[in-house]
């Protein structure tokens, strides 16, 4: 049965890959907006997701992530704009629900039924007869490593097991897109690692588009292919993780030299092309520098520290300390979601 199911999975994934190539995106969002009592929670949101890719939806609390997820999962009706899942417009919520799976932030499983009973129940709600729903449920529980606990009451499951059960439930009807809202919240490091591996395998093996919501930025940069960052309901950055990271203007390098050599070192740094000193040499010997140009210089920005160290070594000035900031998704996130600095990012591309 599992072999047949495996063959089915491969065939389904291949079909989906062809279809995805033909239609390009499994999820397309255009100008989506939501107004609650005169207050805009989400404004003019546009992005897209291809089959087999994982998109991280980021933003501080209140940025509009949950509202966005709820609109995309048809729980909330958008005030403006539209979206398409597998080519189906948001004006057809019933049809869309058959193409997507959701792992909500709060799982709210009934505790007095077993994992398999839950799978059978949802399988039947999605239109399978009882036998088929049970067959699919068992296959998915096997895949998320819950088969040995299939007949245990959900009340006895650990947090990690419930998250895996939630993912299995989201996949019961073979969706093309799944939305995962904070799936690793409350899991221990091993549980997080296993769950991320599971999510990756879902996306890659079944060519499913995954929308991944999380506050754990290292986790997002490890897992996701694409990122959308929201602030106050507006997209402030969107693109691949690499593109976003390269847009950081906070690539600051702080080097400490002996105080008596600080002025000499600062002079040397001035001589390096593309380097701008952020702060003059201090009595403590710390010198701070960053790329002179606006964000977007890519590889050259990341080599700034190397070039600074190089001139110091050539001049035989001892290096007492080195700190590098910026260059990570986390740094970009903080910059973009900080009101004081975010306005300078008007040129960030949104596609």
């Amino acid at each position, binding site marked *: 049965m*599992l072999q*047949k*199911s*495996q063959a*089915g*999975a491969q065939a*389904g*994934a291949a079909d989906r890959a062809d279809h995805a190539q033909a239609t390009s995106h499994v999820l397309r969002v255009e100008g989506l907006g939501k107004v609650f009592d005169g207050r805009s929670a989400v404004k003019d949101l546009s992005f897209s997701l291809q089959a087999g890719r994982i998109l991280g939806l980021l933003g501080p609390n209140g940025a509009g992530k949950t509202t966005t997820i*709820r609109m995309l*999962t*048809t*729980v*909330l009706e958008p005030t403006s704009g539209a979206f398409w899942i597998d080519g189906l417009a948001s004006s057809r919520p*019933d*049809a869309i*629900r*058959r193409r*997507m799976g*959701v792992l*909500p932030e*709060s*799982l*709210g*499983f*009934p505790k*007095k*039924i*077993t994992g*398999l009973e839950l799978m059978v*129940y949802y*399988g*039947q*709600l*999605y*239109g*399978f*007869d009882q*036998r*088929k729903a049970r*067959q*699919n449920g068992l*296959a*998915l529980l*096997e*895949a*998320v*490593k819950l088969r040995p606990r299939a*007949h*245990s*009451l959900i009340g006895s499951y650990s947090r990690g097991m419930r998250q895996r059960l939630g993912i299995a439930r989201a*996949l*019961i*009807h*073979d969706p093309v897109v799944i939305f995962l809202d904070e799936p690793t919240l409350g899991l221990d490091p091993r549980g997080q690692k296993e769950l991320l*591996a*599971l999510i990756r*395998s*879902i996306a890659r*093996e*079944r060519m499913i588009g995954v929308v991944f919501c999380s506050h754990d930025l290292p986790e997002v940069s490890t897992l996701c292919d694409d990122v959308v960052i929201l602030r106050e309901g507006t997209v402030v950055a969107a693109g691949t993780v690499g593109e976003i990271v390269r847009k950081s203007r906070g690539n600051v390098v702080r080097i400490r030299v002996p105080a008596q050599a600080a002025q000499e070192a600062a002079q040397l740094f001035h001589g390096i092309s593309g380097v701008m000193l952020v702060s003059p040499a201090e009595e403590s010997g710390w010198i701070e520098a960053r790329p002179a140009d606006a964000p977007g210089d890519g590889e050259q920005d990341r080599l700034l520290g190397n070039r600074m160290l190089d001139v110091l070594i050539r001049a035989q000035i001892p290096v007492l300390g080195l700190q590098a900031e910026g260059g990570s998704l986390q740094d970009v996130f903080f910059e973009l979601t900080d009101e004081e600095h975010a306005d300078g990012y008007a040129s960030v591309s949104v596609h």
Partner: protein
Amino acid sequence: MATLQSPSTDPPGRPRPAWRLVCQRELTDLWLGGRAIVLVILFSLLLAVMAFLLATNQEMSLMPPREMLFLTMQTTIGIGLFIGLLIGADSISGERERASLEALLLAPVSRRQIVAGKFLAAISPWPAALAVSAIFLAVLSPSSELFLQVLLLGGVLGTLLVVGYTAFAMVVSLWSSSNRTSLFVSLVVYLLFVIPTQFPGTAQTGFMGRLVKRINPIESVNQFLEKVIVNNRTFEEMWDWLAAPVILPLLTCALLFGFARSGLTLEGHPPKFLRFRWAQPAAAMLFCAALAQPVPPALAAGEADGQSGLSISVGTEYLEVKTGEEFDFTTTLRFDGEDELPVIILSMNIVNLEADGDPVDPEDWSPERSMVVEAPARGETSQQEWTIHPIFEGDYLIYIVAIPEVADEESTSRPIVTQGLHLSVVHEPHLNPGGVLPASLGVPGGLILALFAVLWLRRRSLRTQGT
């Protein structure tokens, strides 16, 4: 990590309708989860204590069997709809709070089907409560005809009320963002309907009092059942009391299923027309004002000049009957006076000759304790039919008083009395007090055993599947 298996995408067989699936799921939660069965066990305990007291306590046993049955059915309906209200109020807002609603709303099923499944599950404790009640009714009932009559009337009217109030509680639950709000609003409304039924008679006899009585479905059902079961009134006489209990479920079910699509949302907000803050207090004030209406003065009395020449007689002087046996007798009113009399009030009285003349409430013994008749024309007579349904053994004297209606508030009239009808009531044992105790202990005990049996079977089934 194991390779991910895809669910089979073979064409599905015959899927079950969503309302049935939701209903099954809810029934499992309610009954295997223990909430419903615990409520029914508590109900059976209450009924057991009540039935035992009714049947065995010396003071309480003065109550006629028909009234015992009425009280038992009244309690059954009251608690049955309370259980429905509790479950209905929790059914949607509770899921919101437990965060289990979102996954259900994401499934491709119609909101009406979800609501229908939940509604059917929410009223499921009512048949169980009625079945428990039927056991006690059977034990307390003096005859199988009466038992069937009470069970049928109570079952039908109780079902109307349970459906109506459960649907109402679900409407509140649909529109409530928190479970606490939903339960609070539902219980307050329940009490608003129950409390007036306990008000003193003066609060219910004015025009507004009578109106409130008529529009209150619980009071209407109480009135109907009491008059038909206890006072031997016929269905034809009482059918107009059924308007409120019939309209209530129609109205609340229409609201529930009408708003199911737009109201079954993740947040749960009342529709715009209910968001005015003044609406609820205004409704409550209106309701209280209605109850507080003073009793209007009696309708203008007719003229009653002259009282002489009026006589009344009873057709039978002595009768021997068995308890529960119904019999009729007639009175004859004759007028030989000079002046016309407009209206005569006839009032029946029953005195217990063995208990130092203790009066008996004729309402318990007869569908009609009084009647108002036109006075016969001069020199003519008129006859009145009276029905008696004796309840207790003993010697009684029945007599009828004829009262010419007074002309105005300050005048009076002279009542006249028939000779007494001496009634000997011989005891025929119907009630089986000895049977009450086994039922009182057995029913709740059986239900508790059933609960443990269900839990044990469930655990065993899980263990078997697990291995």
